[in-house]
């Protein structure tokens, strides 16, 4: 290639000099000299005015400037100290306002004294007793309006109700709402003069208990371990750690894949749509502030175990088939069962409903007779043993051909439960709305942290790999991330957790996008001597006649100058 162009170039270049090198050449006319000058000038004009700018433009690595300092600050936690001020409304419908004020003050004092993790604290607030009482009675909790308002989310409403005939205060958590009812004997209303009262101590203890797991989890996320908290029991710490490890990595969108597997030909249909709408959709709606979900379903007949998987054993004593617990990991035949659809960007959570062969039904786990288990970070399995029908003429019993919505109920409720677990929802307190709220706070904290650390990674990467290009889109993503991080942080400070989560989600998505920008793959290691090898074969042969022509021309001009100057 290179020699080719050289061939093309050199006769021409030499041809243009040809008159001057002939044996006994006739003198060159001034017109010929001028023409030659023009030819050389034309080539050099192209090189200088077009060639060099193109060379400059195409070989320089574009590196958009990033706010490195700010990014590192976020990663080091200097830019934001995430705090979680939980606003708790105290509804005292039957208390004097002065008494209520006092109770609030003492309880707040007690809470503050006991709190050992400053980032997470409870802020008591007296709510307008009469309205709240009626309001909370039957309506949905305030906190679930996730439209960002200028007021803080209400984490919990504590309703203090006097009740006759009690020895000490008693609490009752309403599992459907975010409301804690505390019944107290009317005589225990603290008098404004006393500094502490059994009622305020009771409220304090109740609140502490309610939020201990959340506090420990957030502390764990923020600092990497729970060592900072003395009150956390090792069991709780272990529980938190286990939960965080089995939960799936956060994603903007999760694909839920519900699959029916059976080794025979039946059942071949199921009321999947109704079942999903009935048992899964409400939960997904409740989880929608945290992530998006897509659902797909499949029915796979004649799905066999892997040849190496342990076979079910027959338990004579109970007339059931059993699977050993340690063999469960090989239950899913990953090689042949068509799971893991590779469509879309988010991770897939698999839920497998397995109907055993009639000859192996009913099938249970040997150790505890359970029929379902969970595979961390992957999904869940449920073995459904439907009632067998004996209508088959050939003799043996057979599975029903169709699974109704009702028969799918237990399985799908288990799947919902597994989904909650896989998404890392905490197990306490017992009220699901409170758990979901806690989940929002935990997600906000972890996303804030992960987006910040991605920013730090990107900053370090930028510094350590100078040959990597940084396109402008990365700079935009980074600035979006940073702005959303700070707004998320501000929302947290104000106690608006849903809004904080929404910002943190945007920040996380943008941060991931900026780090995984496709064009940011560094030039493969490319020392300068390689560059010579790239440029020389082509540009050398082109360049030599051009440079020689230029030099000759310059020499001629210089010579003429001298000749002019001499006489």
């Amino acid at each position, binding site marked *: 290639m290179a020699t080719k162009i050289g061939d093309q170039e050199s006769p021409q270049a030499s041809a243009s000099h040809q008159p001057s090198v002939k044996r006994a050449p006739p003198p060159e006319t001034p017109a010929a000299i001028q023409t030659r000058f023009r030819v050389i000038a034309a080539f050099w004009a192209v090189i200088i005015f077009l060639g060099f700018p193109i060379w400059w433009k195409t070989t320089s690595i574009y590196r958009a400037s990033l706010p490195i300092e700010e990014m590192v600050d976020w990663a080091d936690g200097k830019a934001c100290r995430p705090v979680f001020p939980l606003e708790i409304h105290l509804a005292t419908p039957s208390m004097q306002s002065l008494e209520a004020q006092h109770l609030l003050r003492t309880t707040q004092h007690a809470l503050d004294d006991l709190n050992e993790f400053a980032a997470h604290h409870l802020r008591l607030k007296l709510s307008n007793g009469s309205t709240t009482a009626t309001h909370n009675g039957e309506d949905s909790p305030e906190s679930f309006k996730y439209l960002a308002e200028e007021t803080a989310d209400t984490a919990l409403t504590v309703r203090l109700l006097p009740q006759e005939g009690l020895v000490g205060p008693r609490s009752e958590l309403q599992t459907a709402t975010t409301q804690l009812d505390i019944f107290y004997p009317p005589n225990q209303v603290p008098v404004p003069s006393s500094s502490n009262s059994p009622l305020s101590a009771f409220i304090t203890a109740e609140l502490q208990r309610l939020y201990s797991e959340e506090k420990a989890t957030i502390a764990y996320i923020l600092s990497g371990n729970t*060592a900072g908290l003395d009150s956390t029991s090792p069991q709780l710490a272990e529980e938190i750690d286990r939960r965080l490890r089995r939960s799936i990595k956060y994603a903007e969108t999760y694909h839920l894949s519900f699959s029916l597997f059976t080794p025979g030909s039946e059942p071949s249909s199921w009321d999947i749509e109704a079942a999903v709408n009935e048992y899964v959709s*409400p939960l997904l709606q409740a989880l929608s502030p945290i992530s998006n979900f897509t659902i797909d379903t499949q029915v796979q007949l004649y799905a066999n175990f892997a040849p190496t998987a342990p076979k079910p054993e027959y338990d004579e004593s109970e007339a059931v088939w059993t699977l050993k617990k340690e063999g469960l990991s090989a239950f899913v035949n990953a090689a042949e069962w068509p799971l893991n659809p590779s469509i879309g960007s988010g991770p897939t959570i698999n839920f497998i409903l397995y109907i055993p062969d009639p000859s192996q039904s009913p099938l249970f786990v040997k150790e505890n007779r359970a*029929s379902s288990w969970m595979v*961390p970070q992957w999904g869940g399995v449920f073995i459904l043993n439907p009632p067998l029908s004996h209508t088959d003429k050939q003799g043996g019993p057979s599975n029903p051909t169709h699974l109704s919505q009702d028969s799918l109920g237990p399985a799908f409720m288990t799947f919902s439960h597994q989904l909650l677990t896989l998404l890392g929802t905490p197990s306490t307190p017992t009220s*699901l709305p409170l758990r979901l709220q806690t989940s929002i706070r935990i997600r906000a904290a972890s996303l804030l942290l992960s987006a910040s650390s991605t920013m730090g990674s990107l900053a370090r990467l930028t510094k350590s790999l100078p040959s990597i290009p940084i396109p402008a889109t990365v700079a935009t993503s980074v600035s979006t991330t940073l702005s959303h991080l700070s707004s998320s942080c501000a929302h947290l400070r104000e106690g608006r957790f849903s809004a904080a989560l929404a910002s943190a989600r945007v920040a996380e998505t943008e941060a991931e996008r900026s780090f995984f920008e496709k064009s940011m793959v560094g030039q493969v290691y490319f020392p300068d001597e390689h560059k010579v090898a790239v440029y020389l074969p082509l540009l050398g042969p082109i360049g030599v006649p051009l440079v020689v022509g230029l030099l000759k021309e310059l020499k001629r001009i210089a010579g003429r100058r001298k000749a002019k100057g001499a006489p």
Partner: protein
Amino acid sequence: MALLLRFLRAFALLLLVSAVVAEHTSNWAVLVSTSRFWFNYRHLANVLSLYRTVKRLGIPDSQIILMLPDDMACNPRNAFPGTVYSNADRAVDLYGDNIEVDYRGYEVTVENFIRLLTDRLDEDVPRSKRLGSDSGSNVLVYMTGHGGDQFLKFQDAEEIGAWDLADAFGQMWEKKRYHELLFMIDTCQANTMYTHFYSPNIVATGSSEIDQSSYSHHADNDVGVAVIDRWTYYVLEFLETQVTSVTSKLNLGDLFDSYDESKIHSQPGVRWDLFPGGEQEGRLRTVVDFFGNVQNVEVENANATEPGSLKEDLVEIARLVEKWQKRDKEYSAILGNSAGNATEDPHSSSLHLKLKSTVGTTKMAEDSGWGKRLVGISVVGACTAIWVAGSIFGRSSV
């Protein structure tokens, strides 16, 4: 006393934490052969043998990235079409009928390999071609091919340098894409490839020192070429005969101690210094920590499967959702904005989610032809008119 108790508790907690940190939650394997052409049969056989081993020990195909630059099984020179063997006894067909190659042929390039490690891939690259590891993943990277001092050739056309590899691992660590990483390489002067690594938690091992060649083990006269390399052969021998199940307690120390230079004919190397705790700590990692899959299935305990509590929970959620939607409708009515999903009932919104992935189709119908012809005629007419006008004016102006 109380203080002592507290101290003890904190200590116990600390122990617990450190024990917890050492665990990983998933396993990934990246198995790369970098050379094509028939006479490099053994490199594909190396990789496929490793593939069989990790699959046997439980890593599913979805967590194995297999890069094969050539298809030996279907090579016209293969006397045993459709098969690949790594031993002259031809006992095990490595190709079998269940193999998932993620990158094949000319897809196996340095760029794709680096993109795979750093996950800088197009959005539409399927998940099967991505390394989805995270901060809890143990990753096994095995490479084989023709290499030299601090480089490994890819496909005869390009090469990956030790610097590139180190930077790729550095970025993986930076983005928490592995928990611990075992890097294995079988090529000439293999140990030079890991000299530039700088990210922590990596154990690296190679087949030969600088200025040493790695040799093939034996040839199969019927296949006509060498079928496996020495170092890989003895590593596999260890894995196949000693690590028989996922529960094997053999550790990396045992694996590396099994290297026998008189058999391998080169000096294999191991690099421990990036691993926290160095060689002592690293030796304790079991082989299945990298070659097997984590196997912790959680059987639902009795009270969790008990439908009562869960059912109640679900009923509550359903009620909650209903109320919440009512509220949302009020809000959107007040704000006058169509707030998308929130205002839809769960039924239609879940349907909506399902349909989202399908691409819309458009019906193509041929135009009756006259419209297009008319356009054609007018275009040709306009051009001709301008041309004729040009001829008239052009001529008159001369």
